């Protein structure tokens, strides 16, 4: 079961003198939900960007299914089956929700010149896209323009897009923030189901109730360095984590 899907070794990203991510080793096992925690500015988003090819690491390597992917551009990483969401949501604003998902369905075609010329709004594609939208509970918004949706819906739209692309691994960057309780529960169920489908999940989340309940394992970053990893309960009691991240009252309000 400890089959390693993604392996980061000595991964670093420096901005000038600032070490946003510093010598991080991390393994993601196939089929787990791994939580990435850490204080604000710890380097979590930067770490995501390193894995997903937005940034090229200053040093270190990333292997995905045994294949080295660090330094590959985003679209190549995506083509390996890694889907992601953005902390600051990035919908294709003037397209409809359905079209947003359809765009992602093209993942298998964008790489080959010959397959680019078929029609993209075919019945079968639309049906498949609608299924995804139903899964994230947005089917009734399919025809709405994405740019005009409130934040909570955009978070789910991003997840839908990531789901289409990420048949191996999906990266969720604070996808629960801005959702109310009920919606959070729905999403939690969804993510468990995704995991049960065999897709691995790496998520960043400040909502402790979500991370504690959902994650199989947690890694904590601080100042770009990994300071702890382990089972949720262990993390919650780790002094370093409490000091840097949870606070003395254990994130009472954040629960």
């Amino acid at each position: 079961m400890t089959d390693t899907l993604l392996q980061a070794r000595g991964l670093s990203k420096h901005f000038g003198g600032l070490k946003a991510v510093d010598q991080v080793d991390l393994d993601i096992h196939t089929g787990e939900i791994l939580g990435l925690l850490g204080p604000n500015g710890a380097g979590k988003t930067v770490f995501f960007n390193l894995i997903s090819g937005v940034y090229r690491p200053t040093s270190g390597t990333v292997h995905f299914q045994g294949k080295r992917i660090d330094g590959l551009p985003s679209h190549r990483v995506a083509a390996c089956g890694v889907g992601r969401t953005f902390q600051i949501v990035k919908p294709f604003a003037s397209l409809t929700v359905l079209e947003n998902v359809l765009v992602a369905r093209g993942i298998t075609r964008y790489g080959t010149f010959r397959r680019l010329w078929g029609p993209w709004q075919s019945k079968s594609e639309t049906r498949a896209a609608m299924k995804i939208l139903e899964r994230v509970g947005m089917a009734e918004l399919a025809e709405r323009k994405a740019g005009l949706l409130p934040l909570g819906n955009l978070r789910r739209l991003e997840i839908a897009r990531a789901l289409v692309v990420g048949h191996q691994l999906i990266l969720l960057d604070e996808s629960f923030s801005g959702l109310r309780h009920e919606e959070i529960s729905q999403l939690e169920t969804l993510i468990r189901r995704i995991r049960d489908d065999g897709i691995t999940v790496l998520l960043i989340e400040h909502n402790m109730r979500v991370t504690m309940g959902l994650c199989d394992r947690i890694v904590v970053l601080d100042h770009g360095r990994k300071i702890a990893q382990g089972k949720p309960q262990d993390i919650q009691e780790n002094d370093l984590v409490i000091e840097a991240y949870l606070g003395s009252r254990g994130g009472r309000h954040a629960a």
Partner: protein
Amino acid sequence: MDAYLITIGTLIVIYAITVYGLNVIVGYAGQISLGHAAFFGIGAYASALLTTKAGLSFWEALPIVILLSGLIGIVLGLPSLRLREDFLAITTIGINFIVEALFLYVPYFGGALGIGGIPRVFLFGIKLKGMAFFLLCLSFLALVIFICWWFTRSWGGVACFALREEESAAASVGISPVRFKLLAFVIGTMMAGLGGALYAHYMRFISATDFSFPMSITFLSMIVLGGMGTLWGPLLGAVLLGILPELFRPIVDYRILFYTALLLVMIRFQPAGLLGEGSIVRKWLILKPAGGRP
């Protein structure tokens, strides 16, 4: 039909072909290009040189011209991969000025004298002039519109739309920004090259000033007025901006002022174009928002 009307019509159709190319670059892929006249000019000069100096016929030269335009489009489109949107806008203006300067100052391109004596187009041994040439241009326009229509319905097209909206999100679903920006540039500049070739063989005399920056702005105004990114907007814009100045002929002294003032008013009150979202035309026709286009 009146030769004068055919002249105006032919020029409008040639512009429309070129403007469809610009629509692919700006409207579909969201890459601002303010130097489209340069590619129009490259097509014109290439065809003129190939037919006058290399002795090819129009039809032999055409594939070479189109390929060459696309190729140069790729090379000059490279900055768009590196530069932020607003820098790109001005860089493309720069490309326009530089290309024009090359035409003007390189003796091989005829320098300030331009290139004259460009042969007419023959088809099946028949000399195409007047109406016949107009029809030829019209068929090319139909072809170009068909290609654009096909493109918007293809995966290649939707990849460009996505890039236009959010580059990093597009990359996260597997769309290579480099590949698709260049794809749009190639398609767009090839269409401009085609337009340029037709222009050269229609005017039969070209000089650098025909391809200067104001021409690029005219092209851009045509799409913006027609409706950026729409299928029929470029045609509407080309017809409108092609005909208006002619309608104003009688008011000789005030003609250009009327024209520019009208352009200003249209931009100010229909900034999304006549076929764009929320336009009066759309309200009249109660058109549904076009899928995938703004």
